[in-house]
């Protein structure tokens, strides 16, 4: 007997494979899709105009939590701004760097820049909380950044009489790590494409650990390589390479070796990716030291200075879009934008 091909107009349905209707119809005759060829469904999602009384009669004010991309765009448009991309594996201290910088500003100007405002004050306070006495913790902590879309911390600064915005991207370290597994994972990291300064964190505590040292030294170049392959740095941003958790390094018996390793990492990156960045610099920081052997926030002022340093030569970037049409061949001769 000839077998009849099982077909269903519902593209989601896998009845042909599993024999079960995705709509739960035991009697397949009741299913409006079964036995029909797949067709384009009307996916209209029109609001049907139903009314629900909204009791809120005030003015919607924006919150002061880290910004999603849309709101970050608005900040970029308001003032001259520097976008900072912070790259590091999990627990390398990305959030602590941001929180430590915010804490420094509360003590006074940092690297000649005064705090001039923020639209993410609540967010900054939250990430600082676990490192403060008010948290009643025994030692400073920083809650790990959750997986998900990138968020931006915003700090306005006044330097030499001019206002400037800093937008610091924060994303979970796990996501950056995955770039080393698959370069395509960097595709969605638009904050890196737009960044004026890329800041790569090297975890000083792990670099001090004999068991983790090799991982740390190997992971950073792989992540950067993945991002380069994905075209993340086509704008040639500046690159800051930061050794974090210097308190742990200073307390380590392998301190010299760590410093040597860090220099090795920095040199390796400079050698390997010189064409992809405009300027290079490295810093040693201790944003939220657990030991008192290092000043809280040490190194961050220098780092901020580098963040605020204008790019060597602002460039327009000509993007050539090609969709394969003959029309593309009629593009005017490129002008060297220099």
């Amino acid at each position: 007997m000839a077998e009849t091909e099982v077909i269903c107009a519902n593209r989601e349905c896998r009845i042909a494979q599993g024999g079960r209707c995705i709509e739960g119809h035991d009697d397949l005759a009741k299913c409006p899709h079964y036995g029909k060829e797949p067709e384009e469904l009307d996916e209209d999602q029109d609001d049907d105009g139903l009314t629900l009384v909204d009791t809120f009669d005030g003015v919607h004010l924006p919150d002061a939590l880290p910004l999603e991309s849309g709101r970050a765009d608005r900040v970029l448009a308001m003032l001259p701004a520097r976008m900072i991309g912070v790259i590091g594996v999990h627990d390398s201290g990305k959030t602590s760097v941001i929180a430590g910088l915010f804490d420094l500003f509360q003590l006074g100007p940092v690297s000649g820049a005064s705090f001039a405002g923020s639209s993410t004050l609540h967010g900054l306070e939250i990430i600082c909380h676990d490192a403060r006495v008010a948290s009643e913790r025994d030692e400073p902590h920083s809650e790990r950044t959750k997986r998900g879309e990138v968020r931006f911390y915003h700090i306005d600064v006044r330097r030499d009489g001019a206002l400037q915005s800093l937008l610091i991207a924060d994303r979970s370290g796990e996501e950056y790590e995955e770039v080393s597994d698959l370069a395509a994972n960097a595709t969605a990291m638009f904050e890196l494409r737009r960044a004026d300064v890329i800041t790569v964190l090297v975890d000083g505590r792990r670099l001090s650990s004999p068991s983790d040292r090799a991982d740390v030294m190997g992971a950073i170049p792989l992540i950067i390589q993945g991002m380069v392959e994905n075209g993340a740095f086509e704008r040639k941003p500046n690159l800051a390479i930061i050794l974090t958790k210097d308190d742990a390094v200073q307390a380590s018996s392998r301190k010299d070796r760590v410093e040597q390793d860090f220099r090795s990492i920095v040199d390796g990156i400079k050698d390997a990716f010189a064409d992809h960045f405009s300027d290079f610099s490295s810093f040693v920081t201790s944003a939220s030291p657990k030991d008192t052997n290092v000043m809280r926030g040490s190194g961050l002022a220098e780092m901020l200075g580098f963040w605020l340093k204008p790019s060597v030569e602002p460039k327009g970037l000509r993007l050539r879009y090609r969709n394969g049409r003959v029309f593309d061949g009629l593009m005017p001769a490129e002008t060297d934008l220099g």
Partner: protein
Amino acid sequence: MADALSPDPIKVDQTLHGYSEGHRLIDGSLKLPQPDARTMLVLSDASGSGSRLPPDGYLTGYPLAESGKYVLARTWAAPEMSRPGCVWTHSLLIDFADLARLRSADDLLNSFRRPSETGGVGFAARLEVETARTPTAVPPVHLRRAGLWASALYGKPRGRIVAERDGPGDDELVAAIWMQQWPRLRRAFRFCSFSTEDRSTSADIFDLQLMDAGRSSRSRIPDGVIASMVDHSEWINMLLDDLELPKRSGLRQFLRDVGSDVTNGRAAMVTLVDLYAALESNAGPSKLTDAVARLEGLGSGQGRVGRAAAARVVFSRPGLNDSRLFDFALEQVRTERNLLEIDPVTIGRALLRWRPELLAEGIGDGDPLQEAIEAAVMEASSDELVDLVETVPGAATALLPLRQDLLEQASFWRIASVDAQRLIASFDPELDQAARIVGALVDAGRDDCSSAVVVRFGIAPVVAALSKLDVAGIRSGMGWVRAIARQTDDLAKGMADGTVWHRPLLFALAEVLDPDSVPNSVGTDPWVIAVERSRTSGDAHGEDLLAACLFTRARGWRSRSAGRLFFLSVQRLHEAMASARLSDQAWRIAKLRLPYGSMWRDWDQCKKLRHAVVDSFIDRDLPPIEFGTVVDDGKLWEELVDLAADNSRGRRYLDKVRSALRSGGEAWWAERVRLIDRKVK
């Protein structure tokens, strides 16, 4: 058949996510495609920063489109980990097909396991979960909150709904609302029973998020819709009734049945609930009208099953009187080739009631309505169809091929708009039902069609129809009598072969026919045969008229049975004349062949009659025996004999009569022989 109370086992995949040098997949029973694996990594992480997670964790539900699975996950805080903000998440991955069959999420919720501090083991194999076949009821105390959420979810279908988390019972409540949805909506529904910020991404919007009570949900999701007020609409009450008493409610099954092809997501819920209410038997027509209007508002390709359900009700609910609804239902039927599985008769009857003009306009062969109309037409009473033709004259063209019995209805032929002449001309002359059709035409008083009918069918069906009528009936259709009277040859044949025998018809023929018109070239006179075949009636007028006709015919030269015609007419006519009851009509016929002359007084018509009879017998030498028996009345016969005996020719003829009578053995014949003996020596 599955017992409603017995559990329904399903197999689900599972994963465990937790902190291990970052938030990662710890273990799992399947390998997911990269996009789905990434989605799980994000959504299995904590739902927000800086907040204390509920001790029993919280639920997250979301689909994995590429894998065709729905994830129901529970996330717990993992304070045992070195870093703040670490979580454990146990996810159950339910195949979409299994999800559609789920009645309750209780058994899934009971399957969650928080890993011990030593790490997650035992998550690498698929789970078999015995799921209840009956939905879980929501306790009345929770209905208010359910109402808040449902009101916001379905009242603002495009909004990200935000509500404040009240406690661990909210997990079950949100699961109950999720389970109330039809499969398509259920597998697209994203919810989280504890958030501190919006978990939606640009591509995947969370439908419902319960926010940490300690935080302002509005500030966390600025464009979220706060579930803060119940819309006390009927649809909300129906949803709550269903949540409270799901076993008694048919709503959930209805949603399951009609939601399969609704892609509008939450926006369709109110529409479908309204439709459910409108389809209940006690719902008013306006409710159905409104529900249908909203259903159509969903979009052209949406809710075909729901439309079919509404159309079924429109067609089958008696007393529904809304042309818009019918137009809607008609459109549904036309889009489905199987008539929505509605009895064709039901659809057809509604069509005849609402759109009879369709019959006149004509329906294409491929139109699914053709079957319905044919079924209804075959089933309808002829009175209904006649009314239909009266309303829509053009419908006759479509009806008659299916219901030729309509032609047998007098009421059909009474319809002024029916072009009877043309219709009759189109009939097959050999039509079996010709007699019945003619009967209907006669009954309808369509004398104007008599000639056309006789031309088409001959006189037989007309005679048959007229033979069923009484005197009054025939008199009211004299046009028909005249029509057959014009066919004298056929009439002669009919009389001769016994077809024409009905006495009232003979009366009518006697009235309209020239007595000599029916031919009698051979054999017995057709009139004699016809009259002898019928019985004398009590209609004196008719009988006298017939007698006058027969007498006059007997006096003429057309008949070859004059003697028998006298026998059939003279005594009756004589009595009528004697008693002066002869009608003018009969008299006008009879006097045509009565003798003239001054020797008799005009007023003594009886005598004229007697003379006419005697003269005819003697002059035409008609069979003597027929003279001997021409009347039963002995006195009248003696007067006839007296007249015959007045002259020698007559006496010679009487002698022949005497001889003829002697050959018979009957006593009254012998008595008449003796009378002749006395008169003729």
